[in-house]
């Protein structure tokens, strides 16, 4: 009976037909992937997963083994921008030839080693210490990596959606029926403004923070969804990158603290209404709390998105680890299910990030009643 209800909720039996068709369509991909494996020596699932969730200097589009057994990699090289000893060098990452070639910069050379750029001498030696970490120095690296490129793409998508919508609002006003991009923008913007921001921040102050929070919401959402697209323009683990989430959380942290009211700071450093011994205990806790709140914000987004990517990749890896075709339908089915879940999570995490940001800002600016 529950199953019947699920079918009804999911839009009837038609949905299941489509779903099965999708599984069938994906099967050959999984099967051919399994075939190639016969020749490969050992499949390292952990290394593959780490490679996929990490950053990269090129955008891999596809790689396969052709009929003559040659390995072919198709990838889009991205610009590498290095600042070293007052010298700026811009070149495409294809000059590294996948790490085989050195690129001269001043007296030193640059070498790509395990997806990182290091400074070396002319021989290209990479030195390790006992725990196998690299001792070579890293230059100041402003490269447009895969994550940065994907982030720029999401900026372009945002501009392409919002500029036409905004233009139509300024021309026709807000009272005409929405059309085109407006139809998708309007409910989202209204939802974020009314249900997230105005619910947490006092009404007269909420509008000041709306642009920031709305931008954060849409930026995280678009990056999450782009990360879920498994082929070329997507697939980068942008919102599962700790520096990305760190930046967003730092914005919230700065905004919260520069707009904090007198009450807010009093609650942190004086804690009114408590006896002195408790005060001595509470003030350090409150002070640390200032930093742990955005820290948790950073970790939450990072961990959720990265975990989602890891689960999907692990499910696909099962085929290669077990080296049978029999598990392919199971693992494809499971990864599609996880994909559906991750689609929900990408909305949920954008929602939670915005909700908690506005909650923190609300705590800082709201009048106490």
């Amino acid at each position, binding site marked *: 009976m529950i199953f019947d209800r699920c079918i009804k909720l999911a839009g009837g039996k038609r949905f299941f037909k489509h779903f099965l068709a999708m599984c069938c369509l994906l099967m050959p991909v999984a099967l051919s992937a399994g075939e190639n494996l016969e020749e490969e020596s050992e499949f390292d699932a952990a290394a593959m997963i780490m490679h996929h969730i990490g950053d990269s200097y090129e955008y891999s589009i596809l790689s396969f083994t052709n009929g003559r057994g040659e390995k072919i990699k198709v990838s889009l090289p991205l610009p590498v921008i290095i600042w070293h000893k007052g010298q700026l060098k811009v070149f495409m990452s294809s000059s590294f030839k996948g790490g085989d070639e050195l690129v001269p910069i001043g007296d030193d050379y640059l070498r790509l080693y395990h997806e990182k750029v290091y400074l070396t001498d002319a021989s290209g030696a990479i030195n390790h210490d006992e725990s196998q970490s690299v001792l070579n120095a890293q230059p100041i690296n402003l490269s447009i990596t895969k994550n940065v490129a994907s982030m720029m793409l999401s900026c372009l998508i945002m501009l392409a959606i919002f500029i036409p919508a905004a233009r139509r609002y300024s021309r026709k006003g807000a009272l005409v029926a929405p059309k085109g991009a407006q139809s998708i923008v309007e409910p989202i913007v209204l939802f974020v403004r009314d*249900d997230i921001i105005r619910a947490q921040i006092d009404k007269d102050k909420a509008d000041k923070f709306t642009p920031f929070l709305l931008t954060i919401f849409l930026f995280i959402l678009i990056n999450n969804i782009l990360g879920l697209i498994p082929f070329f323009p997507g697939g980068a683990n942008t919102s599962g990158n700790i520096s990305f989430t760190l930046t967003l959380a730092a914005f919230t942290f700065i905004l919260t603290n520069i707009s904090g009211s007198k009450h807010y700071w009093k609650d942190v450093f004086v804690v009114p209404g408590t006896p002195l011994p408790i005060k001595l205990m509470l003030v350090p806790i409150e002070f640390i709390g200032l930093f742990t709140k955005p820290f*948790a914000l950073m*970790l*939450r987004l990072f*961990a959720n998105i990265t975990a989602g990517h890891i689960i999907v990749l692990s499910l696909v890896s099962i085929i290669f680890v077990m080296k049978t075709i029999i598990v392919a339908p199971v693992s494809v089915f499971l990864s599609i299910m996880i994909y559906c879940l991750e689609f929900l999570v990408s909305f949920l995490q954008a929602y*939670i990030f915005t*909700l*908690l940001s506005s*909650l923190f800002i609300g705590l800082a600016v709201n009048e106490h009643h």
Partner: protein
Amino acid sequence: MEQISFTALGLGLIIIGVSYGIGKIGQAAMEAMARQPEIASKIQTAMIIIAALIEGAGLFALVLAWLVN
């Protein structure tokens, strides 16, 4: 090897704790929503906030486990 297994045990304990907490919130929120459906959306928001805070505590522990390992 032993250290790895202890970390894994700790991770398991973290997950048990966090899921117990979130489960309790879910239970309470469901009951409250069933009793007062008219404020269901408010309860939902509060539920998500608290679940996110508990999740935050869990993530702290996960990161610490990862750093210690």
